[in-house]
């Protein structure tokens, strides 16, 4: 009985240790997953959000992208558009967030493929956008390319993918 109790205690301590290890030293996949979740939270604005909050969100959004990042989007009813560099992304994000009362962005079914060098990654997910009005942007497949720069994972390219060609 004593031995069994000791074994159970040992297993519990080992599990707790493993959990603590993953919390304190998360792997690249977990970091990227958190990054994508933060990106969704940053691009989501509520009707009660002040202009200052929106400006802070734009700043946070820009921080997720590399200096030479590129966004290529094909939005239903609005057509395709490509944004190059942080400045253009910042200006567009400011304009979009200022023009919308609410914006809800969700990245669903996130799958991450790490590169062989462990310093690049490709993320595939489904993006769902709700602007609160009657426009239906539907859902779209989306891909991100990330690169580890100075210890931080930054988005180098984001693009929408046509599932049905």
């Amino acid at each position, binding site marked *: 009985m004593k031995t069994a109790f000791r074994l159970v205690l040992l297993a519990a301590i080992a599990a707790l240790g493993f959990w603590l290890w993953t919390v304190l030293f998360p792997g690249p996949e977990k970091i990227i997953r958190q990054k994508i979740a933060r990106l969704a939270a940053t691009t989501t604005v509520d009707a009660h959000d002040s202009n200052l909050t929106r400006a802070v969100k734009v700043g946070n959004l820009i921080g997720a992208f590399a200096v030479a990042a590129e966004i290529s989007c094909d939005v*239903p*009813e609005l057509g395709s558009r490509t944004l190059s560099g942080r400045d253009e992304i910042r200006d567009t994000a400011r304009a979009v967030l200022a023009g919308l009362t609410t914006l809800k962005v969700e990245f*669903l*079914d*996130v*799958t991450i493929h790490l590169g062989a060098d462990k310093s690049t990654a490709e993320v*595939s*997910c*489904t993006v*769902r956008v709700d602007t609160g009005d009657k426009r*239906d942007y*539907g*859902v*779209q*497949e989306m891909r991100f390319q990330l690169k580890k720069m100075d210890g931080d994972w930054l988005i180098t390219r984001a693009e929408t993918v*046509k*599932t*049905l*060609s």
Partner: protein
Amino acid sequence: MIVCWQLSAGFRFNISVQSAHVPPPHWLRVVLIGRRPKATLMRIAVLVVTCFITFRFVLLPIRIEGISMLPTYQDHQINCLNRLAYLRHEPQRGDIVSVRLSDAHGLANPSVAYLKRIIGLPGETVSFHAGHAFINGQLLDEPYLKLPCDWETKPFPCSPKQYYVVGDNRSMPFSFHTKGRAERDHIIGKILL
């Protein structure tokens, strides 16, 4: 064998002797957990495991959102998706299938997927003239279409691994309707009802 039989007989005897003195369980207890709680617990466990496997990997409960499958399926309708439908055969024309948007690999179920009808099979060419679908130049009979359509398009050839999928509600302009060629590995199942 004899020993076992004797033990069994003795066990039965003991039970019958005991049951003669023990009052019958309360009717509420019988209704809730049965006369044999262990057996009831086992049945519940089996039921939970069966339901988990069935509704997680075989029949996925889905909620249809949007109007693209009208009038066959209404907005917010509940249905099930059979993920094993194409284990033995390939998708057929007329099947209503679910097409996943994200990475096609893995067993995990997508949170969101398209629900469309297959009208074009691999290797075929699909086009629309005067609102009617044509497969390799032949008019496709679609009795399920009830809403008017005026689509005029160029031909869309499907590769050997592509299926042409489209909704049943083609009353909106062609560019506003989500349709097109889906890769075979993006088709995850067939709608059940």
